[in-house]
């Protein structure tokens, strides 16, 4: 098929072997004889020529010329139509695309170069097809001769192509006027008479012409149909070709694959008998066939802040690959101190997720975690070790040591943890609205176990403390309640003279009749040694402080304030670091002194107070004393209070005095 086409291409005017070249030489009557019967072949030849033209490539002028040449010959010979028209039809219009009618005009089109390839083959096929259909054709050689003959006879030339124009018929010689059916050739009438055509059937030329025309048309139609079929066939063939191409490629791969497989099988066979059963190899082989490796190491995440509780942490990790993982193993142990000791136990948990909440841990402790991923192939390498920390235990507020005034509270607490924590947080809500609308204020970042918090006067607060470390906050401590009414303080046992006993609630000081034996006093200066006195712990906040002391009429006492570093070996009021009101009762007379730096104004008080109100006013640098029951002002010191002072109480004779706290300043006191 291909070869045929190649041969055709090789020809200058490639024509199929079996084509008869249709001679149109006017001067060659022999050839002319063939005109009618070979009409179709000629037509076909034109078709083939055209196809051949196209197969050679677009713009092959010569091929085009061939076509045009044939067309012109036809035109002139048969006077079918105006040569232009016919030529146009031949050249420009496309047969297969327009519908095939009964006698469609014989139209051909110069095909696209894109279709050349196909046509190239098509022509070959077509050639064969047509060969089958239409019988013998002029030889190639004949074609060649004729074309050359025509070359010399060309008359008009057109611009586009050399046009072999059939010269005007010269009617000098006899024109044929009848048609011999037998010979299928036009003859002159008189020839009938001659021997050749004596018994032949003869019909008038025009009749012959008509019938010839008809036949041409029929053949043309058939030809067109053939062309269509050929084209379809060509299309199918091309599809098949592509499919085959793919299949060939596939077959190559398959072939290779099959080849190797075959090799394996072949090679395994002899070995199998020799070897003992070694499953590890097989397994490996199977594994390699499965191609699933052990996973790569997971990446353990750092601890999310505030995610731990006192006994648990939530550990998370990630796997940054597409490896198959069936489970993870999380291992942990408490972080070792630098000092060597007994190895801490290591724990392991197996989970399927990429996170795990590990419980039963010790508060405020660091643990190191590492994780490995597992699948059928085995474990991954271990991840890096990450340190997670549990939250601390809650602190414990020292409720007995709470001091407050109208504007602030001083809270202190025990850490609640053996090891240090990062900081503490104090949370407070107002007691009137505990849960519902209670806003919780928080003081954060407290470094030590005490804090002074500012408050509003005249309210009640509930206070909690939390400890904080890297893992997060502890739960709340037990609450403590604070009332911002008056000032709250307690007598400080660490300061009291040995002969004084302080009550459990820290508000009553008692000096008993008996003198307890002078016990060994600690070298520290915190205890009063000379003055049988005790100091109270007032909150170190400036502003107003008011408290009351209940005393017996006949009691010898001193009540007042002193700086924290007052000399404990001296009497209250005997130095410039303390101020006090002193009452002595002797000879049925009440004597009152207001002592500071050993001096006192001369004051007579006719009614001895039973309850003394004391107002400490940092703002105005004043210390005032009142008879609470009478609302009577007794005396006011003007004192320079450059530091904080503490309430002081002294019993100069056996007896007791009681401190009253949390009292709102009475109105009469406000005048002072």
């Amino acid at each position, binding site marked *: 098929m291909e070869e045929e086409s190649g041969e055709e291409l090789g020809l200058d005017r490639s024509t199929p072997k079996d084509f008869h070249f249709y001679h149109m030489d006017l001067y060659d009557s022999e050839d002319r004889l063939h005109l009618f019967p070979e009409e179709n072949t000629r037509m076909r030849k034109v078709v083939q020529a055209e196809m051949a033209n196209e197969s050679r490539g677009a713009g092959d002028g010569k091929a085009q010329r061939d076509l045009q040449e044939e067309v012109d010959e036809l035109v002139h010979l048969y006077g079918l139509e105006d040569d232009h028209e016919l030529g146009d039809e031949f050249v420009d219009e496309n047969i297969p695309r327009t519908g095939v009618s009964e006698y469609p005009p014989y139209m051909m089109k110069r095909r696209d170069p894109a279709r050349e390839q196909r046509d190239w083959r098509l022509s070959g096929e077509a050639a064969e097809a047509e060969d089958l259909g239409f019988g013998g054709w002029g030889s190639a050689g004949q074609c060649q001769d004729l074309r050359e003959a025509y070359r010399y006879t060309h008359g008009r030339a057109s611009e586009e192509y050399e046009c072999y124009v059939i010269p005007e018929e010269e009617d000098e010689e006899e024109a044929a006027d009848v048609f011999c059916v037998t010979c299928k050739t036009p003859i002159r009438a008189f020839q009938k008479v001659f021997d050749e055509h004596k018994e032949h059937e003869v019909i008038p030329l025009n009749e012959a012409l008509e019938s010839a025309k008809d036949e041409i048309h029929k053949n043309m139609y058939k030809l067109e149909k053939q062309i269509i079929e050929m084209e379809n066939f060509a299309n199918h063939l091309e599809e098949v070709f592509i499919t085959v191409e793919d299949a060939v490629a596939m077959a190559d791969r398959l072939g290779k694959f099959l080849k190797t497989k075959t090799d394996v099988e072949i090679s395994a066979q002899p070995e199998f008998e020799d070897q003992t059963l070694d499953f590890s190899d097989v397994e490996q082989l199977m594994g390699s066939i499965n191609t699933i490796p052990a996973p790569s190491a997971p990446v353990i995440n750092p601890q999310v802040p505030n995610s731990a509780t006192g006994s648990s942490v939530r550990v998370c990790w990630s796997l940054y690959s597409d490896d198959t993982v069936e489970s993870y193993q999380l291992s942990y142990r408490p972080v070792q101190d630098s000092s060597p000791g007994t190895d801490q136990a290591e724990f392991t948990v197996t989970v399927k997720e990429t996170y795990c909440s590990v419980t039963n841990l010790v508060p405020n402790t660091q643990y190191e975690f590492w994780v490995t991923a597992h699948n059928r192939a085995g474990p991954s390498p271990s991840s890096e070790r990450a340190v997670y920390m549990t939250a601390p235990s809650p602190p414990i507020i020292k409720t007995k040591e709470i001091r407050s005034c109208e504007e602030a509270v001083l809270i202190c607490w025990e850490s609640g943890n053996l090891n240090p924590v990062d900081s503490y947080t104090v949370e407070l809500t107002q007691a009137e609205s505990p849960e519902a609308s209670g806003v919780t204020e928080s003081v954060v970042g407290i470094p030590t176990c005490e804090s002074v918090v500012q408050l509003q006067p005249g309210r009640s607060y509930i206070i909690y403390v939390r400890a904080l470390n890297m893992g997060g906050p502890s739960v709340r401590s037990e609450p403590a309640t604070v009332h911002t009414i008056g000032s709250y303080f307690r007598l400080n046992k660490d300061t009291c003279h040995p002969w004084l006993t302080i009550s459990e609630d820290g508000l009553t000081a008692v000096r008993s009749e008996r003198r307890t034996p002078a016990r060994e006093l600690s070298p520290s200066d915190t205890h009063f040694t000379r003055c049988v006195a005790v100091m109270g712990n007032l909150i170190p906040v400036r502003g107003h402080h008011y408290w009351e002391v209940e005393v017996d009429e006949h009691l010898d006492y001193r009540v007042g304030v002193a700086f924290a570093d007052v000399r404990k070996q001296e009497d209250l009021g005997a130095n410039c670091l303390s101020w006090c009101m002193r009452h002595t009762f002797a000879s049925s007379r009440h004597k009152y002194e207001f002592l500071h730096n050993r001096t006192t104004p*001369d004051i007579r008080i*006719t009614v001895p107070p039973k309850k003394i109100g004391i107002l400490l006013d940092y703002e105005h640098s004043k210390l005032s004393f009142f008879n609470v029951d009478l609302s009577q002002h007794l005396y006011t010191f003007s004192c320079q209070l450059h530091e904080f002072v503490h309430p002081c109480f002294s019993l100069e004779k056996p007896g007791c005095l009681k401190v009253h706290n949390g009292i709102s300043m009475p109105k*009469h006191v406000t005048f002072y």
Partner: protein
Amino acid sequence: MALKQISSNKCFGGLQKVFEHDSVELNCKMKFAVYLPPKAETGKCPALYWLSEQNFISKSGYHQSASEHGLVVIAPDTSPRGCNIKGEDESWDFGTGAGFYVDATEDPWKTNYRMYSYVTEELPQLINANFPVDPQRMSIFGHSMGGHGALICALKNPGKYKSVSAFAPICNPVLCPWGKKAFSGYLGTDQSKWKAYDATHLVKSYPGSQLDILIDQGKDDQFLLDGQLLPDNFIAACTEKKIPVVFRLQEGYDHSYYFIATFITDHIRHHAKYLNA
């Protein structure tokens, strides 16, 4: 009674005025000073009566405190003046200027020298009628003889005064030379009548409501040293009767207005505590 304004001066936002009127009790023209604090413009204020010489109004420096506490301070004269009684100007501690706040019973004094009634009756009524004061809130204080006058007015009228205080008062006139001189002249020789105007004695029989007495006494006061003032007697009596007194003996201070000026604020605060309660 027609009041005639003699003067008016703005002071610490309020007005210090002096008025004159015809006194019924004293049968003569009497002047008195009134300080109206800023608060008096918008409402009634308590009244605080000061008994001493008229120098008080310019020398004692009470205006600021009175202004702050919103107190109307009324300062009557020490005695009737211009009565033309024979012997009234003979000594400074008897007669003109030393009325001792008694209602004299002896001639020729009894017509005019009725300072007790004037201070406790006529003047308050006059003030209540003419000035923005609250008649229910009244206190009294004074200096020296005025201190005595304040004490006896308070002690003789339980409940009338909310509070009382004094500067160097004559506490026990029946026992001191001044008192003896004055009482014998105004009241005759019957000493039982004298006790009626003696604070120390009055305390002993004081039945009434709680009083809170503040007394300041200059330690260097000559009259104290001369035994004219006798505060100890008063204190002792108050101690016994449980009358609340705070008596302050002020080191280095004398009888003068410098002494008054030093402690006037404490006294006014003392009164404000009760008057503004």
